[in-house]
């Protein structure tokens, strides 16, 4: 049912915005985004950003360069570009993506570096935030929509990328990727590291209504999130929650406000130590200011928002050691607390604590084991896949290579069939793989068996090659078989 209104909006050339979530389209169709978003539409009727989204959804129309820009913005906010789903989808967009499995494309595209460039140019082009509407136009892959929308909602994604690509938590994004440095610069330009702005943002974010479309789009996005999608309400929790980490933002804008504030930083102990040192140098957690700490730490990629939020947490931890859980537990155990004066009870408590500790320790061990198991299984699956593809390729190449002009088509078809069967075999391998997850012992046996089976299957296919170039053919199978048997 949601589909209908969405479609109608589309047809109306939608500037209208129902904040559609986006997941839109995959190649075949282009659906407007369903669900929850629709309710929020009235709110954002003006939001250009949203309209941009909608535009994104339009398949036909003109280029969504502005969208790209927006996305680019968002992207730029995240400096990290390690292979990442969202990222890849953007890449797809840039490259006129083909079809559904975002992931597959992304994996093929590999590094984010590729994206950086095109996005950069686009971003630079379409900085004018308020112009989004005008631009959205086709040439945008709708497929990326969902992810596109993701950006606003969760610039954390970007942050994650950032974090993933950093070592030891030091947030130096540009290291791993060639192009990101461009982005970083560009992003820095946009950033107005301004506390006042930050507070503005907070105020605006807090606002449920969007008064002024122009600078608001980014806020709207974050606002959207609560409305958007079904279960993603939790996202909104992040947004208004942490003043220091404003979501989305990044994109949009031309307004300098679009500081890509929302990058999740992965605080490692080393980073934290540097932080503590800086704080102590500045006279303690109460006296230290975020700016001062930031300067003192001299860590690339660390923004003042990170420092601010971290400082806040630090202060809380120091002067209010009781966590909510503990305080509630304290209520539960208040009686025990009082009686801690009683030695005997004290001992009981200690013993109980000790037991709890034992349980936790054991659980921890088991968890580690389980994790390792999972990782190994994945690795194995990957390995098998690789082997398969290798064999398939070699088989196919041989076939293709040996094709005579007359039977070329037939052979090619055969080659394709081999590939398809290889693909299917891959799935089969996966299935096998999964089944053995619960029983690691059997795994190695089964996989080797599988490999043997695959080899035979490939050989069989090769042998079935049509006659025409029989002469050449007869030679290739033996060669292929030899290869396979290796």
């Amino acid at each position, binding site marked *: 049912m949601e589909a209908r209104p969405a479609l109608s909006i589309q047809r109306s050339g939608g500037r209208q915005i129902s904040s559609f979530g986006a*997941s839109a389209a995959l190649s075949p169709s282009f659906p407007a985004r369903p669900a929850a978003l629709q309710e929020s539409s009235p709110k954002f009727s003006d939001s250009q950003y949203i309209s941009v989204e909608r535009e994104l959804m339009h398949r036909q129309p003109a280029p969504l360069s502005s969208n790209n820009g927006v996305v680019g913005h968002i992207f730029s906010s995240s400096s990290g570009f390690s292979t990442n789903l969202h990222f890849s989808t953007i890449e797809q967009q840039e490259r006129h993506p083909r079809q559904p*499995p975002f992931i597959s494309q992304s994996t093929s595209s590999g590094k984010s570096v590729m994206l950086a460039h095109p996005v950069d140019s686009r971003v630079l082009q379409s900085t004018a935030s308020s112009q989004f509407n005008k631009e959205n136009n086709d040439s945008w892959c709708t497929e990326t929509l*969902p992810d596109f929308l993701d950006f606003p909602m969760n610039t954390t994604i970007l942050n*994650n990328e950032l974090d993933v690509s950093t070592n030891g938590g030091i947030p130096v994004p540009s290291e791993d990727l060639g192009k990101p440095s461009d982005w970083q610069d560009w992003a820095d330009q946009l950033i107005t590291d301004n506390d006042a702005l930050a507070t503005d943002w907070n105020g605006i974010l807090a606002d449920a209504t969007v008064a002024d479309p122009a600078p608001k789009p980014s806020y709207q996005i974050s606002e959207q999130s609560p409305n958007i*999608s079904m279960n993603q309400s939790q996202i909104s929790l992040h947004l208004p929650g942490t003043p220091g980490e404003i979501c989305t933002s990044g994109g949009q804008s031309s307004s300098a406000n679009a500081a890509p504030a929302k990058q999740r930083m992965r605080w490692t102990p080393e980073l934290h130590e540097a932080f503590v040192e800086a704080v102590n140098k500045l006279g303690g957690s109460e006296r230290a200011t975020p700016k001062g700490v930031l300067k003192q730490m001299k860590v690339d990629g660390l923004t003042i928002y990170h420092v601010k939020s971290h400082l806040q*947490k630090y202060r809380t931890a120091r002067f209010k050691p009781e966590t909510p859980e503990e305080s509630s537990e304290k209520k539960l155990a208040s009686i025990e607390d009082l009686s801690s004066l009683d030695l005997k009870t004290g001992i009981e408590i200690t013993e109980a604590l000790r037991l709890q500790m034992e349980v*936790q320790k054991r659980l921890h061990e088991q968890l580690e084991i389980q994790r390792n198991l999972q990782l190994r299984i994945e690795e194995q699956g990957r390995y098998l896949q690789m082997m398969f593809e290798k064999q398939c390729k070699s088989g196919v190449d041989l076939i293709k290579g040996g094709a005579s002009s007359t039977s070329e088509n037939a052979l090619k078809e055969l080659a394709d069939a081999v590939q398809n069967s290889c693909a299917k075999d891959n799935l089969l391998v996966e299935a096998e793989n999964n089944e053995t997850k619960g029983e690691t012992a059997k795994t190695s046996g089964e996989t080797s068996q599988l490999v043997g089976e695959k080899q035979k299957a490939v050989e069989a296919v090769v042998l079935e090659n049509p006659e025409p170039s029989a002469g050449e053919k007869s030679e290739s199978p033996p060669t292929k078989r030899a290869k396979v048997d290796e």
Partner: protein
Amino acid sequence: MKFGKRLKQQIEQSLPDWRDKYLSYKELKKLLRLITSAPAKMSGSPSEYGKAEAEFMYLLNNEIDKFNSFFMEQEEDFVIRHKELPHRIQKAVDTWGPNGSQPSDLDFKDEMAKIRKEIVNFHGEMFLLMNYSNINYTGLAKIVKKHDKRTGGVLRLPFIQKVLEQPFFTTDLISKLVKECETTIESVFPPPEYSGTGIFQGERAAPGEGIFKNTVAALMTMEEMRRGSST
């Protein structure tokens, strides 16, 4: 027991803040059903299929982000607390300990008891975070596998590759913190007078009830997961 049920159980018993941070397994399954019930991809009404598929992907990605941000936030907290703990212990020893500035056996014991409790809870919380990560990963793997099975897609492998790299799954840091915490605890707890035997003998109101209950649930979940096919 089916994974969905187990997940639900785990969620119910988890700390209230965490409840909505877990994988929305049911939602994803619903979407999956939608996808499979939608007409074939290229025929008839491709829009439905495409839409459902897109929604599925969108949700998946969103879930990952959700995990990541929650995880990293918790991790940050843990790092801070972890560093602060020795300071507090030191302070307690210095103030109320036998050689401290204001030696007071009672206060000392009191404070140490508090600290002990905190450490144990801290340890528990960290462990729970790891459990959270693990459960979500399993859930993701399952749902994506289901997806591939029903739609014949090849989403799984590359997707899982990505997941493996995500912050929420790389729990090495937390693991390290947990271990360090365990050593700290050794020093804080007085030597055991008798070795505790059964795991669940702590019926006498374990002070860390919330966390303890949670870990028990986690233990049961893990055992079950290992029994059957947890893929």
